[in-house]
């Protein structure tokens, strides 16, 4: 099938295209130089913004924890339902939508690639079953490896290469995409209801520190040549004063950087940019984090923006979720996973009038605006932790328009308003920068070669938004920006028009990407033997029942990676 998108204002930062009026040609699911104009279906994008399909580097959309959240919150679904149509399945929202609804809602906004950031390896099949039931979008998932006993033991013993081989096995076995680390050491400690408090607090019973885990896995990541860096949820997340932990974490891998390339991704940074000794003296630490990031090139971040709404927090950080439960007294689900990780879920309402919540809202935006290089900071809500992903159009409006920020500032807690840095920030992102923070930068950080851009050979994942940057100023017309991003004029996925005017036209499977990490041959056999021997000691399932077979992936998209071990 051939497709020609005519005359749109194209924003394609990876190829340096900044709002030029041009045509985009598509053939067989890929971007091509040109197509046969008489045969191709044409889309007239005159007066519209054309961008690569959106890419989300961190959004909890599938797996045991997400599903436990859905089960926990029928009240979340009652008010937000999706009817079955001639082409789409029915479902429910709001903060934890059912799988079909998740795929459609991303597609409606012009997003086509989403990374689920927290897969417990033992339950990886569950994650993949849900991802396969999430239509249209391409996706991948990061196995949680920072508290896996094998990692703790090998790193403690200084066996980096052994560790790397086992991590490679695990990524393949779980059909994963990156190394996810959550509160390193803290999750193992949570096994006995404890936590770690600093980078140098030893993990009970394992004789290793969070610092050693982070550094070790950074090295492992390099040995394996993984396309993304390690993806880290810091220690002390959600605690006042934790911006110091975040700074120390970034500093602790400074020396591992080479050629100015990133070696660590600090995720949902808003949640670890808290200053103050307690909730009373709580303040934004965004400036300090931004200053550090502006002076260094080895880190990337995503925002974890807070939205004023009722949502559901869910992380692998068991002790953090427990604290949240004791703070709120809300419902609380906990799910520790043997030998590997934990998880917690607590419903949460971010209120405009709360000093802390309003300050959190401000921190996310401060980070995005104070960090000068948009390639270093990506737009997320840590869905659904800061709020559901469906709030992205609002965040885009806040980033593009000072007026939009002021309108919200007027409504928030007065103390939070008076302390917020936002009134002093005049920066307003343009469409080029928005394209970076919502797709190009994310694809680049993930090492996704065919995503996030519109160059020849890229996947034909394209979003067209009904906003004319020639005649309208997004800073002034921020409501129009919001409307445009809420319902894409067109979403094209793999060369097929899947959404028109915000309506889903097609139910189709997206692909699941995973890393086929290839080790040097002889060690593979040895590795399997070693694992087989120890398997029964560590887990309650058999070795051969553990890996996720490709049958679990509706569309399997392996990406070969050649490791150095």
């Amino acid at each position, binding site marked *: 099938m051939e497709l020609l998108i005519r005359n749109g204002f194209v924003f394609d930062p990876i190829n340096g295209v900044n709002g030029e009026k041009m045509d985009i040609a598509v053939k067989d699911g890929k971007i091509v130089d040109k197509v046969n104009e008489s045969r191709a279906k044409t889309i007239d994008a005159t007066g519209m913004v054309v961008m690569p399909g959106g890419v989300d580097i961190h959004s909890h959309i599938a797996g045991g924890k997400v599903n436990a959240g859905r089960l926990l919150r029928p009240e979340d679904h009652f008010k937000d339902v999706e*009817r079955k149509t001639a082409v789409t399945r*029915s479902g*429910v929202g709001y903060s934890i939508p059912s799988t079909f609804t998740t795929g459609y809602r991303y597609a409606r906004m012009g997003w086509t690639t989403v990374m689920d950031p927290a897969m417990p390896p033992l339950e990886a099949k569950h994650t993949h079953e849900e991802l396969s039931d999430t239509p249209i979008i391409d996706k991948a998932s990061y196995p949680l490896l920072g508290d896996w006993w094998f990692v703790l033991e090998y790193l403690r013993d200084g066996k980096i290469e052994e560790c790397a081989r086992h991590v490679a096995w695990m990524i393949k076995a779980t059909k994963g995409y990156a190394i996810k680390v959550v509160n390193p050491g803290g999750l193992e400690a949570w096994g006995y209801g404890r936590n770690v408090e600093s980078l140098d607090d030893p993990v009970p019973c394992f004789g290793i520190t969070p610092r050693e885990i982070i550094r070790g896995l950074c090295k492992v990541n390099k040995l394996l040549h993984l396309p993304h860096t390690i993806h880290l949820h810091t220690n002390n997340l959600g605690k006042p004063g934790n911006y110091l932990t975040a700074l120390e974490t970034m500093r602790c891998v400074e020396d591992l950087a080479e050629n100015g390339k990133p070696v660590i991704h600090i995720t949902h940074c808003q949640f670890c940019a808290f200053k103050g000794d307690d909730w009373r003296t709580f303040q934004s630490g965004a400036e300090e984090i931004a200053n550090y990031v502006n002076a260094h090139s080895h880190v990337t971040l995503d925002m974890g923006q807070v939205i004023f709404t009722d949502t559901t927090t869910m992380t692998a950080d068991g002790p953090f979720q427990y604290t949240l439960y004791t703070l709120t007294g809300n*419902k609380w689900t906990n*799910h520790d996973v043997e030998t590997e990780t934990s998880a917690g879920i*607590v419903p949460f309402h971010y209120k405009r009038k709360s000093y802390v919540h309003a300050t959190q809202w401000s921190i996310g935006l401060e980070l995005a605006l104070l960090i000068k290089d948009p390639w270093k900071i990506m737009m997320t809500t840590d869905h659904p932790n800061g709020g559901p992903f469906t709030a992205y159009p609002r965040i885009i409006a806040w980033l593009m328009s000072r007026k939009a920020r002021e309108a919200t500032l007027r409504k928030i807690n007065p103390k939070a308003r008076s302390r917020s840095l936002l009134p002093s920030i005049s920066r307003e992102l343009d469409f080029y920068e928005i394209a970076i923070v919502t797709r190009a930068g994310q694809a680049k950080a993930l090492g996704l070669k065919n995503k996030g851009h519109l160059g020849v050979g890229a996947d034909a994942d394209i979003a067209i938004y009904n906003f004319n940057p020639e005649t309208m100023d997004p800073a002034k017309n921020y409501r129009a920006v919001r409307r445009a991003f809420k319902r894409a004029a067109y979403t094209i996925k793999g060369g097929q028009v899947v959404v028109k005017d915000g309506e889903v036209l097609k139910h189709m499977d997206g692909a699941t990407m995973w890393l086929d990490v290839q080790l040097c041959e002889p060690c593979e056999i040895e590795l399997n033997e070693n694992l087989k021997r120890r398997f029964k000691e560590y887990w309650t399932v058999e070795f051969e029942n553990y890996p996720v*077979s490709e049958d679990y992936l509706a569309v399997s998209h392996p990406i070969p990676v050649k490791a150095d071990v």
Partner: protein
Amino acid sequence: MPVVKAVSCPVCGSLCDDIELTIENGEVVKVKNGCAMCEAKFLSHRSEHRIRKPLIRKDGEFVETTLEEAIRRTAEILAEANYPVLYGWSNTSCEAISVGIELAEEVGGVIDNTAVVCHGPSLLSVQDMGIPSCTLGQIRHRADLIIYWGCDPWSAHPRHIERYTAFAEGRFEKSAWRGYMAKIRSLIGLKKIRSAAKRLVLKEPSEIEARLKPTFVPSIAREGRKLIVVDVRRTKTAEMADFFIQVEPGKDYELLQALRALVRDQELEVDHVAGVPVEYLEEVVDAMVSCDFGALFFGLGLTMGGAKLRNIDAALSLIRDLNMRTKFVIMPMRGHFNVTGANMVFTWQTGYPYAVDFSLGYPRYNPGETSVVDVLLRGESDAALVVASDPVSSFPRKAAEHLARNPLIYVGPHMDVTAQVADVVIPSAFVGIEAPGTAYRMDHVPIPLKKVVDPPEGVLPDEEILRRILSEVRKIKREKTKAEAA
């Protein structure tokens, strides 16, 4: 003779996946590692009661028919119905359940699984409060205190204790088998100090922990696991327990509230609660608050006994309280091997674990109204599809009667009571023996099921049968739209 290893057992929610089967002439002849229930299932799946041919009722009598005919008739019944119910799902694969939900959505019916008659109340409580839990291996590695409440794993989940709890060998906790033999009950050293300290300065647990931290070693070095059983009668499991609490029937709620009070260091004004001396309860609570990692498993004895929903609310509250003092988890003992998987797939596709009504074109959930037993009691359904379940023998009589009055389709391997009163019977393969798939263990761990032998000739897996029904329903609907247009 070929031996197949690492087979998962499609019987109970423990889903042991270490079964070894010897296959001869396309039949299982030997079962290794399984319990008696497991052996019986693998060895007898070819038994007499097996249905081999599709059946259709004509003039009150079953006549054999072709699969195509049976599927066509099924699709007609479902497509014509205004409010069909689709029930069962706990003894089949997640893949089949997924097709079942699509079918329910297509025909605008109610889909429900067997949780509605077992752990339904538990799920409602979880939706009210949440549930602190974990995978079974976590308990195997760490739990030094195990409680079974209103369940008898020794009989109903025979390998649960040996694989996952008291008699399992973990990293930090060794099997209590020896301890059980010797019945050593004494508490020693650090434990006493810890629990005393905790009771003295209740408000500042962090402070005690800070003081104990440098010396913290898990119980491995100190003592074996403890087993507590709470039940109305002295079960096999109770025989092994360090503490057995024989609760008066229907008094679980009182007992739970008493334990909560004791955990919160409140004094009880009475000598006995639910027939149990308070002194004994105090001893039990001491063990609970002073353990490093406790796990409470509960069964239908708690879920269905006395105060039902309030029982589980109270149990969850007790565990929340205990987490202020130490680490504690709780888990329902799920019966059918994939009832958990049914709840899972329902939830990710519709948002709700059971009792989902599609009659308005989107998932609606209101147990008590949209649950299948209630739909039947109100006499509202006008057709029914039952998959791998026997509701006619397990539902309340009035509900079963209405079900039998409906045009009824049965998909499953056995000629059970539901099959006998059905209008269409489609034989299906045994999932986990004759068909592959996925099931979820009671702790939410997905476990692959194997196909080890072929099904009888012409017999298909549930998943395939349901797919064919679905496409036939769609065909009928298309024909109908066309006819109307013409």
